């Protein structure tokens, strides 16, 4: 088998057109990897500059009432990771800017996709576009005639007569084409690692290794299947058209149809209903800006009882700040309920979508590709969660200062100095480790592994029955 693989590789590289094509492909891959990294680094600089600009504004606050500062709020900008230069995933679809303020959990806005005319339905020319769409097609082109042409010329019989089993011929031919795919993959991965050598830590290494593994698995499926079709079907044309049909089904057709079905199975609320439902729940709670509402009155009585005083003026703290925080906590419960419901639906949609990997290994590849590059929905939701946690801490800090900072109830002139505002730390997003995210991707890994195993078993068990001519 080893000898056949070596021979096959030699024959592949004897074809001058393929050598030129490979060289062109490698240059393209390196350029695409470089341009992906350049774009990511440019975006990182912009994001950093925007973050610094907003922080500068925060740090220049002086003599401001803490609650006014809560309304003034802050902004966080969605960071881009170095690995997203391989696969941008959902980054251009989701917004980039999130406003953090009192009384409100906002949604992330200003997506890149909404800033221009429509360009590409398959995404930018990033390494993932080549790795997911183009290289598999190239592998199909290399493998579709690998056995059938041997059949047509009668060489297959000769090989079998010389002692090679048909099974080993099929596997050897598939593996040689697969190795060609691995070469292109290795160039991309190496390029990525060299260009971004500074930003690669242990977690990134794990991610890149796994990324290489899933792509290798997908290429294995594609090449083995193409070779098998080539062996089973009567003509080159039949084998090529079958594989092209399958490629189209997997990469173009199924992801969209399954995605739309998922959307219909677990429908998300319309923005209007979502907002109205939140407002309705919010209106049932305590209104920090309306001291006369029922809940405010109840809270007032509780506070007076707690501090064992009879009037707000006797309180050692500023009741306005306490009421604002109580308002905030009620609001948080409302946001948790409604945003939580949406996030829950998104997770259900994702799980259902992942099941499409049973019939479509491309879905598993795409899903894990995004996840490993840190540009999938789970990383996005993690960013939103970390930002929301920061917002809650920020507003609580401001409300606590309002309540316990030394002022009395009703003292609207209470203002905090610049030192206080500077003391509040900046939002820093920590990208979750792969260990934390991986639990969402067990299905995809498992399905890819099952595909690899199933295809191997099918080819292994059926290759004996294939006719030699």
């Amino acid at each position, binding site marked *: 088998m080893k000898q056949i693989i070596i021979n096959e590789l030699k024959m592949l590289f004897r074809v001058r057109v393929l050598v030129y094509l490979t060289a062109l492909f490698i240059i393209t891959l390196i350029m695409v990897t470089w*341009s992906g990294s*350049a*774009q990511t680094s440019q975006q990182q600089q*912009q994001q950093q500059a*925007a973050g610094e*600009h907003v922080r500068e*504004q925060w740090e220049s606050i002086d003599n401001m009432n803490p609650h006014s500062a809560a309304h003034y709020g802050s902004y966080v*900008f969605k960071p881009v990771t170095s690995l997203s230069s391989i696969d941008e995933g*959902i980054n*251009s*679809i989701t917004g*980039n*800017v999130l*406003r953090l303020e009192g009384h409100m959990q906002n949604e992330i*806005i*200003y*997506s*890149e*996709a*909404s*800033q221009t*005319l*429509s*360009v*590409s*339905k*398959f*995404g*930018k*020319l*990033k390494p993932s576009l080549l790795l997911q*769409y*183009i290289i598999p*097609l190239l592998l199909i082109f290399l493998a*579709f005639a690998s056995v059938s042409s041997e059949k047509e010329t009668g060489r297959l019989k000769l090989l079998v007569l010389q002692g090679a089993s048909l099974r080993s011929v099929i596997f050897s031919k598939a593996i040689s084409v697969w190795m060609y795919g691995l070469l292109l993959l290795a160039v991309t991965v190496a390029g990525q690692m060299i260009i971004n050598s500074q930003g690669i830590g242990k977690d990134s290494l794990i991610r890149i290794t796994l990324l290489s593994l899933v792509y290798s698995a997908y290429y294995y499926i594609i090449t083995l299947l193409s070779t098998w079709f080539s062996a089973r079907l009567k003509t*080159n*044309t039949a084998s*090529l*058209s079958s594989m*092209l*049909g399958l490629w*189209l089904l997997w990469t*173009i*057709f199924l992801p*969209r149809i399954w*995605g*739309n079905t*998922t*959307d219909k199975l677990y429908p*998300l609320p*319309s*923005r*209007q209903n979502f*907002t109205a439902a939140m407002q309705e729940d919010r209106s049932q709670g305590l209104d920090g800006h309306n001291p006369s509402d029922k809940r405010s009155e109840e809270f007032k009585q509780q506070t007076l009882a707690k501090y064992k005083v009879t009037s707000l003026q006797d309180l050692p703290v500023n009741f306005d700040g306490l009421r604002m925080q109580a308002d905030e906590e009620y609001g948080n419960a409302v946001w948790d309920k409604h945003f939580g419901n949406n996030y829950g639906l998104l997770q259900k*949609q*994702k799980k259902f*979508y992942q099941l499409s990997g049973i019939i479509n290994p491309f879905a598993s590849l*795409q899903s894990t590709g*995004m996840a490993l590059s840190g540009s*999938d929905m789970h990383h996005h939701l993690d960013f939103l969660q970390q930002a929301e946690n920061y917002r809650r801490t920020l507003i609580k800090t401001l409300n606590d200062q309002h309540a316990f900072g030394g002022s009395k109830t009703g003292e609207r002139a209470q203002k905090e100095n610049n030192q206080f505002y500077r003391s509040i730390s900046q939002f820093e997003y920590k990208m979750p480790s792969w260990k934390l995210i991986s639990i969402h991707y067990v299905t995809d890994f498992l399905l890819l592994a099952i595909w690899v195993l199933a295809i191997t078993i099918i080819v292994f068990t059926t290759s004996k029955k294939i006719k030699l001519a």
Partner: protein
Amino acid sequence: MKHLITIMQNEFRHFARSTFKIISLFLFIVAAIYGLQNGYTLLKKQKEEIESIKNKNKLTINEVTVWYDAGKKGPDDKPWIDVTTPVRAIWYAPAVAFKEPSELIPFSIGQAEQYGYYKQVTNRSSTMDADLAEEIANPERLMTGTLDFSFAILYLLPVLSIILLFNIGGLEKDLSFNKLIEINNINNKKWLLARFGFYFFLLISLIILLMFTYALLTGALTELAGNFIRFCMLIVFYTALWFGAFYFINLKGKGSAGQAIKMVSLWIILCIVIPGTVHQLVTLKYPASYMTDFLDASREETYKIYDLPSDNIAQQLLTIYPQLAHTQHGKDTLKNELIIGNSTSGITNQLMKNAVKKIENINENKNNFIRNSYFFNPVSWFQNKMNSLSETDYDAYYRYRQTIQQMIDQKVEIQLMDSWNKVKVDKERFLRYVDTFSNINKK
């Protein structure tokens, strides 16, 4: 001519015997109907959503007119509200800017899922507000894209054409009886053309039939007949271009497999590689904006205005709106703090308009970059042309943002004029406000 018809008849027999081709055509029709239905569902959903907002607005209007009739100034639990003042009356007069969906949406959903199509407008609104964001959707599904009719046409139709055409003339070369055709005194070019013609007419008739059905269903045939015909012609032109390219591939081809590889490569280059490259270049030249100019205007600059003394604010207002000088308050020597305080939106609106203009200019530069690529990126041209006809492209939403801005301007101006004229708002005036704002949508 008779000869050509005979070739086409024979081609029909060839097609009818090919299960693979029939299944492919069937799948394409299913995909096209699925896409049309997706668009139709979106059209219905948007219309229903808009109708439900309009109904809610009617309830608000009724509620407020009841207050006027009862001589009340607002809701009982909010005693500080006084709808006889222009500020509150305008606040309560529903002003929702809608982007009514075009009846051609089923043919191209375009960028409709990336933008909001209704917005509650206040005098503090802007065209970059968060509530103008797109409908809540799964970002991974948005990234994968929706299978709409235009996707079926732009991407799947060429693929179907490849399946139908790759062995036309190629099979004869595979089996080495292509010379036999020439011996029979058949012109190879015409023979190929007639065979291609059969598939061209088959596809076009089916597509037009499907489109006609949905146009009847949505009313596009009567409401937007001109655009519908343009849409059909665009599809015919697009299909003809692909058929033309494939014709030359087959004419020069040496066999089915080689032809298929060339056709698929062309598809990959035109549909995936070139648009992807242009997309990447746009982002490299114009990185995604974090909108800091707008954020500064809507927060930092706005807060600075709140801190300004009344006289300063009044002076700025008089510069932007010179007509205020002729109002009652404009003629007063002493300025009313409350009126001035409620008029700051006149300045912030201007600030935000300036910031938005900068962002829109950058976006326009990006769009020009994309437009300039059309001569080597035809698929994107067809895509945006289709989106434009169904009013789901960037430009359609830009026009919608302009409508929103008109509504904001109107709200701000009316509030300023009526507040400065110290108008006491009654039911008739309130209803006039309602009419004025709703009429902007109809323009």
